[in-house]
């Protein structure tokens, strides 16, 4: 029976090509717009470390003075050097790392290359195992090298390709800011999305090219990038006394094995704040937060509001397209009252007529889905041409592709329901009489 309905549907669709094209195009446009924006949203709200994000936490403490104090307000989103170091040395988590962003002038040994700036991350030893960075060659550094302010560096695969032609460069010398560093590791392609560990440095930017021990960067007074917020008398626009300044400028991450451990850690943070207040360093009452990775992305509203707005817009657009299709299908099915009357008179039940019309709606949906996928590819290609830093990530993956088809067919079946139901209410006798 399905084959027969399909044949009837194709005949009917062929009879009025313009109208069929209009319905297919409307569904295709709606689906295409939705899938383009949903794919961007899906990519942007993804989990950068799916296996581990629930165990990674970002603590916040409130080190500010009483100037502008409001009870319960969210504390600073970064930590001072003193607090960062205290939390790092306390080693209350399974792993922990303190970090900040920066930029280093790289001096290639090849005479053909001018010196250039590379984005850098100054961090501590646990960064690599905690974030499970893949290593192509070598390894990260250890705590001893952190303490010894060692001149060692881990570089990205792309920088290794550029400077060392992709060969194993461990133990090679890399000159940066007139200082010789020993390469101890080369990362394989690594681009966590979003750039969760430091959202100040572009929320969807690529991972840095150079990783150096934090203590080394302070020792050499390397330029740092990112957000810094200072207050009180210790504030200033001075890069060199940051260790003692009342400024927050570092990110601190901790790995905790379980919810119990997280609760313990929160207690520890609370006690730490109280202790610091007793010592006179903190002025405000204890106000601590501990968010896991996904919560932290939420707190920072990482997904750009423009992207969310675009998704809503596309959904509204799809709705208009569907209403349009319902209207056209209704007109079309009712126009065929005569034909349907004949079928009913020849013994087709209401159910069968209904099924026949739904098959027709489904065919339109399928065609619209195919068109929608093509339009989504086009839309995503256009998105990738945009200069935004997330643009290059916008690709349609298999689950999204399947969702597209399901959405298209469901949408057109839904929009076929009302017209088909109306059409099968026709009284056959009346139709035959008027013929």
């Amino acid at each position: 029976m399905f084959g027969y309905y399909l044949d009837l549907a194709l005949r009917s669709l062929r009879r009025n090509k313009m109208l069929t094209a209009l319905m297919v195009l409307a569904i295709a446009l709606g689906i295409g717009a939705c899938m383009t924006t949903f794919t961007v949203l899906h990519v942007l709200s993804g989990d950068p470390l799916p296996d581990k994000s629930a165990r990674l936490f970002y603590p916040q403490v409130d080190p500010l003075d009483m100037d502008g104090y409001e009870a319960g307000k969210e504390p600073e989103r970064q930590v001072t050097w003193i607090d960062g170091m205290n939390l790092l040395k306390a080693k209350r988590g399974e792993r922990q790392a303190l970090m900040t962003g920066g930029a280093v002038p790289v001096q290639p040994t090849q005479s053909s290359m001018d010196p250039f700036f590379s984005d850098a991350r100054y961090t501590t030893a646990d960064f690599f195992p905690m974030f499970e960075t893949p290593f192509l060659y070598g390894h990260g550094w250890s705590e001893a090298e952190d303490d010894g302010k060692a001149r060692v560096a881990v570089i990205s695969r792309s920088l290794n390709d550029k400077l060392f032609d992709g060969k194993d460069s461990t133990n090679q010398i890399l000159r940066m800011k007139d200082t010789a560093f020993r390469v101890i590791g080369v990362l394989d392609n690594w681009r966590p999305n979003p750039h969760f560990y430091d959202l100040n440095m572009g929320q969807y930017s690529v991972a840095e090219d150079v990783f150096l021990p934090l203590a080394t960067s302070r020792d050499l007074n390397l330029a740092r990038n990112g957000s810094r917020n200072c207050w009180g008398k210790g504030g200033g626009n001075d890069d060199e006394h940051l260790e003692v300044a009342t400024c927050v400028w570092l990110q601190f991450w901790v790995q905790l094995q379980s919810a119990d451990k997280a609760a313990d850690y929160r207690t520890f943070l609370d006690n730490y704040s109280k202790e610091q207040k007793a010592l006179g360093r903190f002025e405000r009452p204890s106000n601590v937060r501990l968010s896991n990775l996904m919560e932290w992305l939420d707190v920072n509203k990482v997904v750009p509001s423009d992207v969310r707005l675009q998704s809503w817009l596309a959904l509204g657009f799809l709705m208009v397209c569907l209403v349009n299709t319902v209207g056209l299908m209704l007109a079309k099915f009712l126009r065929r009252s005569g034909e349907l009357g004949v079928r009913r008179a020849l013994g087709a039940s209401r159910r069968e007529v209904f099924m026949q019309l739904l098959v027709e709606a489904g065919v339109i949906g399928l065609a619209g889905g195919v068109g929608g996928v093509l339009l989504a590819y086009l839309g995503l290609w256009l998105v990738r041409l945009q200069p935004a830093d997330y643009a290059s990530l916008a690709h349609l993956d298999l689950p999204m592709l399947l969702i597209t088809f399901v959405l298209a067919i469901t949408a057109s079946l839904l929009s076929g329901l009302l017209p088909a139901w109306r059409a099968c209410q026709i009284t056959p006798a009346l139709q035959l009489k008027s013929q």
Partner: protein
Amino acid sequence: MSVSPILSALRRHKAGVVLIGLQIALTLAIVCNAIFIIGERIERMNRPTGIVERDLFLIQQAWVNAPSEEIEGSSQKLGAMQQEDLLALRQLADVESVAPTTSMPLLDSSWNEGIRLDPEQQQQTARVSFYLGDEQLLPTLGLRLVAGRTFTSADILHQGLRDIRQPPVVIVTKAIADLLFPHGDAVGKVVYLAGTHKPITIIGVVERLQVPGLNRWTASFAYNSVVLPIQREGFFAFYAVRAKPGRLQAAMQAAPAALYKVNPLRVFADIKTPAQSFAAIRARAYRDDIGMAILMGAVCLILLGVTAAGIVGLTSFWVGQRQHQIGIRRALGARRIDILRYFQTENLLIASGGAMVGLVLAFILNLWLIRHYEMSRMPLIYVLTGVVAVLVLGQLAVFVPARRASMVPPVVATRSV
């Protein structure tokens, strides 16, 4: 023409009428809000920076062989390196003036602090962004002084990155002057930086200078800029350069070459474009807004197109369905124009109904956007324009099928389908 026969005819097509009305309503609600968003973005992009943007460019660079600031006397060395650069740039034929600076409007890299009128007060009086530069900064950016005097070379403090002395004098924007001293007598008055007790005297007021920041927070003090007479001497330096009129491209070519000649051991922030024209800085600052405006515009156009096509399709069907009736009307003496008017009036009725619903939906959507996306209230004019637009669109769309209806010959009445 009487409306009642049209209404009674429409009653026989309830579902179709409701659907087309709903489509018009949704289209109106979405298009109004989308155009309002476009309008807001354009307004944001049209905010004046206060500087003369033509012929201006920026160079951001650092020295690779800069002496470490730990070493005694490094500050003098760094100052000399910067002075050498400035001299080389000022000697270029296509360059009008050059100034070291720490930022630019729309660059989105800013140093923000609170200033106070009384050093003891707990809350700041105004939040401000700082620009640091020498006596050439005002003419290079093309700022207009409206009161007081500009900096002279005697005012300029030379500071390394490590010493933080406050200058005794500053120049502020009119926005700050009006905020702190509403009587218009800001020049000669004293302000304090957050957490300090050292008085700083306002010596001049410039008409307008936008802060470098671009986000929502900095937009709350968009024109609160303070220019400090400080020449920062560190391992990096940014230069604002004004080219001679019409010589921007030539100057942008010559400047990096001249700097390389002074000292090749340097890195530019972006090696591909060592000199960034202000037009490029502006384009990058607003690229997301431009993208959003284009997308919204495209969606509006397609939406209107789909709705128009829907009206054409549905009306065509009704025309086909009513051939017989049209023929009867024609045979009973209705003119072609009457048939045309009939369908036009019918569409006007449906579209007006849809527009009424759409008007309400548009405001509901706007309220929702205000709540979730920090948008502002949409002025009525947007909705009214939208209503007129959908009515006109409906009339345009209905014209083709309505004309076809008017062409139905009276003889159809005598045929039995």
